[in-house]
Every structure is written in C-alpha cells, then in structure tokens.
C-alpha cells in the first residue's frame, strides 16, 4: 500500500498528489514515470514523476481528469492508500549540457516537462521555456518553471496571461532569434506533432514524450508500441522520450483512440454511480 501524504486541486480539472514511495523517490530521474493501480479492480495508469523528495521518501504527481480512472484518482485525498505504485519506469531524459535548450510544454504535459526544465538548468544549460494553456487559471507550475528558466514565455488561447496564440508561434520566434542546440516538446499528441514540424524546419532536434496506452510498463506486452524511424519501439522501456522527427504520428494518435467506446461507457457508469451515492 502507498499512502497519499498530500492532496491538492490545482485547477478545475488538474490535481496533485504526494505519495509515500521511498524506493521510487530515491531513484527517479527526469522523464521517468510510475504506474498506479488504485485497487483490485483498477486499471494501470501511467503518470510522470513530477518531482521527488528523497529525504522523506515522497514522489509528486500531477494529473488531469479525463476518464474514469483519473476521476477516481481525484478522490484519493490525503491519508488514503493506493494499492500499487510501481517505478521509476522508462528511460530517463538525456540530461547534459547542450548549450541553449528550448522546452515547450502544453496543458498537463507541463507536469512532465518540469523535471526536465529543472534538470537541464542544473546541468548548466541556458534554458528557454515556453508554456501553453487554454487560459491563465489552468496554467500549472508557472512559478516553478520560472525558477529554473533563463527565459519563460507564456502562451494562452485566450490571451488571459502572456501572449495569445499557440506554443509553436513562440517556438518560431525563438528559432528565428537565436541558435538552439536541443529542444523538447511535451503535451498533447497534436501539439508535439506540430512542435516537431517547426523544430525540424529549423534543423533543431526535438525530443517528444510519447504517452501511448500502456499495461505492464516493463516491456512485456507491446501495447505501448510506437513506430520510430520505421522500427517498432516500446514506449515504456525504449521511451517515453523519442526524437520527434522519426515518430510515425498518424499511427501513434490513432492507437490512442482504441478503447474510446469502452472508456466512455466506464466513465458514464462511474458518473451515474457517483450521483447515486
């Protein structure tokens, strides 16, 4: 059992948990994730490790409610216990001193980007960070990213904070302005795909963090397969980070929709049950 030691609702739809998991806290590196199963009937949900506190043995996760399992996880308040938390899984981000790096995060992807921002800054890079969200009140981790960025650019759909527009516009500006040695983009599939296009146009290599549907997370089922440079890769062990230019985006985004009908059914049933209770 893994205890939730702190619970916070960050925005209307995004939540943060600190979980007591000393072994994971001791070892996790930027870019790695855990798989959580809440109870005996639960599914395995992968979530990025946003931060660790090795001293107290804690890990921090931030998630967005999008379906049944995440809605249920949002009910796990301080003091409740999760049946399974396994990790740290995946290959860590290649943190080193590249020179100047550009990091782009969108939506809840910012939670997954934050440890990389911090890691790259600590490795001596000049860090330029672009964060994007629909509006100001759902833009997470702004101050924390600012702390580890030499420059922070905010983009919102409605212009409620920072500039109005898409993260790719900010990327264009930066690329036109100065030499970037390595870029990252973490967010919804469609955003990462466009970020890859922009970076590739400017000849900048860009890492993206792929989040396909997963089961075991240890390379034993092939559910998380993605095609990269025409080869089948397992995102849970070979990734989740890959160079965006090699990713077969069409099939990646297609496979994410595989269980849409069942997910909808599960969510509706859950909502109904909750109303009854």
């Amino acid at each position: 059992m893994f205890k939730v030691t702190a619970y916070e609702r960050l925005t209307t739809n995004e939540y943060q948990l600190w979980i007591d998991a000393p072994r994971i806290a001791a070892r996790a590196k930027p870019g790695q994730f855990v798989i959580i199963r809440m109870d005996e009937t639960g599914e395995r949900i992968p979530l990025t490790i946003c931060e660790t506190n090795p001293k107290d043995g804690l890990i921090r996760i931030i998630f967005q409610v999008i379906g049944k399992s995440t809605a249920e996880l949002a009910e796990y308040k301080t003091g409740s216990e999760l049946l399974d938390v396994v990790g740290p899984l995946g290959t860590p981000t290649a943190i080193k001193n590249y020179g100047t790096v550009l990091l782009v995060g969108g939506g809840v992807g910012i939670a997954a980007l934050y440890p990389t921002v911090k890691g790259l800054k600590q490795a001596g890079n000049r860090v330029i960070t672009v964060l994007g969200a629909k509006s100001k009140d759902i833009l997470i981790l702004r101050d924390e990213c600012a702390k580890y960025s030499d420059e922070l650019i905010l983009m919102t759909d409605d212009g409620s904070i920072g500039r109005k527009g898409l993260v790719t516009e900010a990327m264009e500006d930066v690329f036109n302005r100065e030499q970037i040695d390595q870029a990252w983009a973490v967010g919804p599939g469609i955003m990462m795909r466009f970020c890859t296009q922009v970076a590739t146009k400017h000849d900048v290599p860009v890492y993206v963090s792929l989040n396909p549907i997963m089961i075991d997370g240890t390379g034993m089922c092939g559910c998380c397969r993605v095609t990269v440079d025409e080869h089948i890769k397992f995102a849970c062990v070979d990734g989740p980070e890959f160079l965006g230019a090699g990713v077969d985006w069409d099939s990646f985004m297609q496979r994410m929709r595989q269980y849409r009908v069942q997910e909808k059914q599960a969510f509706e049933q859950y909502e109904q049950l909750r109303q009854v209770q």
Partner: protein
Amino acid sequence: MVKRSYNQTPIKAQDPKVRARNFDEVVLGYDLDEGRLEASRCLQCKNHPCMLHCPVMIDIPGFIKKIEDGDMDGARKIIAKYSNLGAICGRVCPQEKQCEMACTLGRSKKFEPVAIGKLERLVSDWDLDNPEPVKAIPHDKGRVAVVGSGPSGLTVAGDLAVKGYEVVIYEALSTPGGVLTYGIPEFRLPKATVKKEVDRIRDLGVKIETDVVIGKTITMSELVEDFDACYVGVGAGAPHFMSIPGTNLMGVYSSSEYLTRINLMHSYKFPAYDTPIEPAKQVVVIGGGNVAMDSARSAMRLGAENVSVIYRRSLEELPARIEEYHHSVEEGIQYHWLTNPVAYLGDENGQLTGVKCIKMALGEPDESGRRRPEPIPGSEFIIPATTAIEAIGQGANRVMLDTYPDLQTNKWGYVDANEETCATSVPGVFAGGDIVTGAATVILAMGAGKIAAKEIDEYITNKTAKNTSHSA
C-alpha cells in the same frame, strides 16, 4: 483383480458448447474413487520409465500406489519431495511428451498410458484443500534474493526456505506467479489454484514483494551487495512482432497483451474491472503453440463470432499440446494450415478489417529437420478480421538485463548460465527458467529452480565456511 481397462478413466469436463463461452475450468478433475480406479491401471514397473521422463523425476509409481491404497497423505508426501507446484504441473505439463509418453502401459498397443498428470493433480488439489501445518523453521543460514515470481522463482524460494534461508522474491507486476498468473488462462489453470500454491510458498516464510522492478526500483548490484546470493528467473515474455504492414492498426495485439489484459487485469469482466479489451467479433490468431491456443480460446470466450488460427506449417508440426488442440477444435476454432499473414488491412479510422494471407508449401528440411514452409506465389487471400493476435514467440525480458551488463548473455539474448548448476558469469548470481532456455515449460522452469536451490545452498555454505576459517 478386475481387468485393466484399455482406456484412461474418463475425466469430467465442461461441455464444449457451454465452456466455449465461459472462463471456468475446462477439465474438472478426478474424485477419489475415479483416482483409485485410474491408479489401479499402473503396472508399478520396476524400471519406472515414466519417472525417467519427468524433468523433476517424481516417484510416479510410488505416489500412484498410495492413491490406489487410498492413502492421500502418503501420496502428497511423495510428490512434495520432488515438486512444490503439483496442482499446476498436473494441469499444464505436456505429459504426453514426457512421463505419459514413456509409460509402459501406454507403449503396449491396446492401452492408453496411465493418466499420470491427472493423478498428480488429484493429489495436489487434495493437498491444497487439506494443508499440513507448517513447522516454523529458523531462517538463519543466509539471505537470498529471487528476481521474478514465476514457477522458477517460486520453486527456488520454497526450497531454500525449507533449507533454512531467508528469501525475498521481487516481482515487477502487482500479482505473483509469472506466466501462471498473466499468461495461462483461467479455464486451464484457475487463478485460485495459483494463489493457493503461492500462499503455500509464503507460508514457508518466503517474503514476496510485488511492484518492484529490479533494474529500476532496486538495482541488481544492490541485491548482489545486500544478499548472500541471487537467483534470476525473469522469464521470456517480451513479444515479438512480425512487423508486417498494418501492425499499428487498432485491433492488432500481441498474445502477451491480449492474455495479460484478460488474465492479470480481468478485462473479460469489464466494466466491473476497469481495463478494457476490444469486443471479439472476427478473430484471427497467428501461431501454433500453447500461446496461440490460449489466445484463440480466450477470444471465443469473449464472445467471438468466429475464431481462426493461421499456422505456417501443418497439424503434424503443431507445437501446442495435442489435448489443447483437440479442446480448441471442440470449441469451434477453425484452422488454416500452411498459411502465413503478409499484411493487416484497415479502414479509414485505423481499425483492422482483415488479414491478408499467403498459402505455403513445405520445402526442403531446415537445420531443425523440419521442412521449411515457403510461400506459393499468387496464392494470396483475405480473412476478414476485427481482431488479430500475434502469438509467434517471445524473447528475453530485458528490463533487468539492460541495466546489469555484468551478467553475460548469449547470442539470443538469454542469460548465459550453466544448465547443470544455474551458475552465471557473476559469482553468487544464479539463473534459470525461460530467461536461460528461452520460452519453454513450467516444469523445466521448476526443475531449474530445484537445481539452483541445491547449488545456492552449497555456495553459501562454502562461503560461510571459508569466512569462518579465515576469521578463526
């Protein structure tokens, strides 16, 4: 004495029409009277060829005699000397290629062999229902870490606990058992039986820590440092894909994923359990081993309209257990022999609609002596399918190996271990089961665990003796 019957005592099984749509166990097992009747067919051969063909050399005539005498307690004591997992092996061992193949009775023309596996199952099920109190043993001879809780890891752990070692098993998944839990379906091996066997290993004092991925949560070097010896039994479940066009379409699965969703995650009970699986309509399974049979029969139980297996050789070469093949045919599964897939076809939404196949002809024998199948040009045809499951073999589980290069592997990626001692390139680290042999059988994985327990005991005893004499 009554005349020996030519045939094995019939065993109760669920009706094929009924069982093809449920996940309950197919074969129901003997009761005590049926068991005694079957046991009375045994000739009690002095040279006991059956025993020599059991990978762990169970005293088969010995336990069969006890059944005949109605002494179940005596029978279980005999099996316990050789095997910790009788209820499992009795169900899933390829008996017809091992003990039963060698049975003297079966070798005479008219007779079927003694149903050794089913008798073993009878004794072990009785044993699980009538457990003996375990004696508390001090675990003071040393500490051993076991990586992986499949049959190999469970066996080595159980044996070492009995010898007086403190043993910790680390398992990456949430539930122990390895393939017994996530691979072999409920209808062949009930998870309640696996759980009872696992609990019995726990009762011996073995600690099982789930949700620990060695190489990620804890490193192998840390284990080597912390324990007197380690055993690596991480299995070979990593799926291979044929990588034909369309592999990323929705509806295309590896057998590992399909079976894991069903067995480990209980997706056949969706939405009571949260993990979904595609509704089975028209299902095509590719491959000819046990894994292919299990996938096909599971799809049928999920309610498929039709299920076909495509295999590139013919029935004679089918690697699956023949009993499972017969069961699958009874359940309505169709076969396309000498057929290979060349591409998956999909609609504009990325959903699988069919499997394009080609007919094969058997050519010259290859290195393995089997005739190599070769495609017949122009023989392509399409099988309509909404789900396709590739069961074409698995490779080594790499998570731990990739993070521990000290452990030498062979050219197939399996751990290089001495099969007689389970010793590896790292002193104090032993390995066995599928991670050494490649995908094999439960009983072979268990056999390796038996050998390793003996060798680890010797290794630690010698090490301790040396240390004591040095410090003296």
